Every structure is written in C-alpha cells, then in structure tokens.
C-alpha cells in the first residue's frame, strides 16, 4: 500500500502538507529536530493513497512518495 517518507532534517514545520493531504493523516510531531523545528509525520499511514499532493506542495522537497501496484497510476506526475 502506498506511503510517504518525510525527511526530518529537511522539514521546517511549515505545515503546508498537512492541509494539502486529502486524507488528513499528517500532523506535527511533538519533539523538535536539531534545527529546532517540529516536523510533519503521518499518524495513520494505512489511509495514505499515494496522491503525492503533500510532496508537491513541500517547499523543502522533504517528502518521498512510495507506492506499489496500480494505485499510484491515479496521477501521472
């Protein structure tokens, strides 16, 4: 099933991905990174549909999207 990987070091906690996610499964972490930012994380990976919207809006290209099978064919990026 599809999923995303958020690179904690790159994330600056701008929260743009949170609103972009149609499944509302991204939220901010409680602890902060060495750079002093809260970082985004997926709190319900099972509902990720691999739509890539979070990765598209991320200004720091901190999100990688992984998908298997046919689901990722929805959006040809």
């Amino acid at each position, binding site marked *: 099933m599809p999923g995303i990987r958020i690179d904690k*070091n790159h994330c600056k906690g701008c929260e*743009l991905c949170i609103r972009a996610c149609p499944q509302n499964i991204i939220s901010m972490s409680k602890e902060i990174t060495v750079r002093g930012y809260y970082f985004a994380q997926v709190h319900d990976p099972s509902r990720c549909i691999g739509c890539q919207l979070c990765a598209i809006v991320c*200004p720091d290209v901190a999100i*990688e999207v992984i998908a298997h099978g046919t689901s990722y064919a929805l959006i040809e990026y």
Partner: protein
Amino acid sequence: MSSNSNVIFSRPEAMHDTVTHYCPGCTHGIIHRLVAEALDELGVRDKAVGVAPVGCSVLIYNYINCDFMEAPHGRAPALATGFKRMRPDMTVFTYQGDGDLASIGMGEIVHAANRGEKFTTIFVNNAIYGMTGGQMAPTTMPQQITTTSPKGRDVSQVGYPIRMAEILSALVTPSYIERVAVHTPQHILKAKKAIYKAFKYQVEGRCYSMVEVLSTCPTNWGYTPQEATKWLADNMVPYYELKCFKDPEKTEGF
C-alpha cells in the same frame, strides 16, 4: 505492475540534498524543484548554467546542481546574454526576484527579451524585497504593508504594481511569456508545465522564454505559510492574471 515498492516522487537529481536557507513555507523551494525537474527531464543539467540574482535566491547555486554565475543586482539578463551568445550550445537560465528583475534590472530584462536572447528567465514575484527584510517592491500590492510602505502601498504616491508578463509580452519580438503561481498543488502542476515548456523552447533554440511565478513570503508578509497561500490567492491572483501571454507557437507568423 511490479509489486516491489518504488519511489514515484523524490528529490530531482538536479537538486542538491542541502537544506535550503529559505524560511519555512517559502515557495522558492518549490520553484527550485520545478526548475531542477525541467533540467533533468530535458537532460540538460550537465550543460546548463544558471545566473543567480541578488536577493533571497542568490544562494540558488547551493541548491541546483549545475554551473552558476552570480550576477550583480538586476544584471542577470546581461550575464545570460553575454554567456549564451558565446555558448549557444549551453542551456542558460536566470532566476530572479521582483526587486532584481522589475526594479533595478528593468532595463536589462526588457532589452534581453526584445533582442530575443535565447535563454530562460524564471521570475519569482512575491511582491516584496525578501532578503533585505520586507521593503516595498515594484510588484507590492496596493495597500500592502511593508517596511517602506508602513501605511500600505499608496498608489497615488508610488504608482501601481508592475505587471512584468504583460510588459514583456507587449514586445514585438517573438517569445514565450507565461505567468503561473505555486500556492496550491494544481497551480504547482501548471507551473511545472510552463517552466518545462520554457526550457524546451530554449533547448529547441526557438525564442526567449520567461515564466513569472507568483510566490509567497510568509515571513515578510507577516502570515503563516498557510495564510500566505490564501493571501496570494485572494490578492495577487486577481491582479496578476495567470495565463500564457505569448507563445511562439501562436505568433510565429507575425
């Protein structure tokens, strides 16, 4: 369909892995990615030369993985002209902000476009001087508050924001001029197509190409990144029409 996990979205090869200095939520980063993706998809990364402006994005040469020249404030189009004329085989692009291009560099950009120089300009319009701390730019919106327009831009004193896409598309010399924005996913996808097309026209040696990209500046606008995208949509998009102003495909036989 292979069943193993494969990555369908990742950092383009033409983008270094360094963490940018841009403020959280600043959409410069997105535009950098779109430029890097265009260089990769056209396979010109290893013969590309970027011209960095003076402004927040001067450090673009630390983020995009190709040769760079760093221009004095506003002079990037002149550097690009000099370089491209000597090496037409290489892909040359300038990445400039609104202070750099529409203020001090107005002379250079208009003449480069008018000569039809075969390079590409990515013009990031965030309606403010970012690097120097939020002063009013030529593209600052009416009533927009900045450190040099504390009561909001007073158009009766300093005139209206400058629409660069319209100005450059009024030149007779054929060129590709489009204005896009990067504040929502679908706008970003459109912006990607425009930036790709701009570079493609250059690789084909067709014409001068410029993409004006409306971009956010959360820090100096005084908004959260999310609010900034909303402010852009509500204020900038109505004034700065998002469309293709000029395309050699259509006006070739002029």
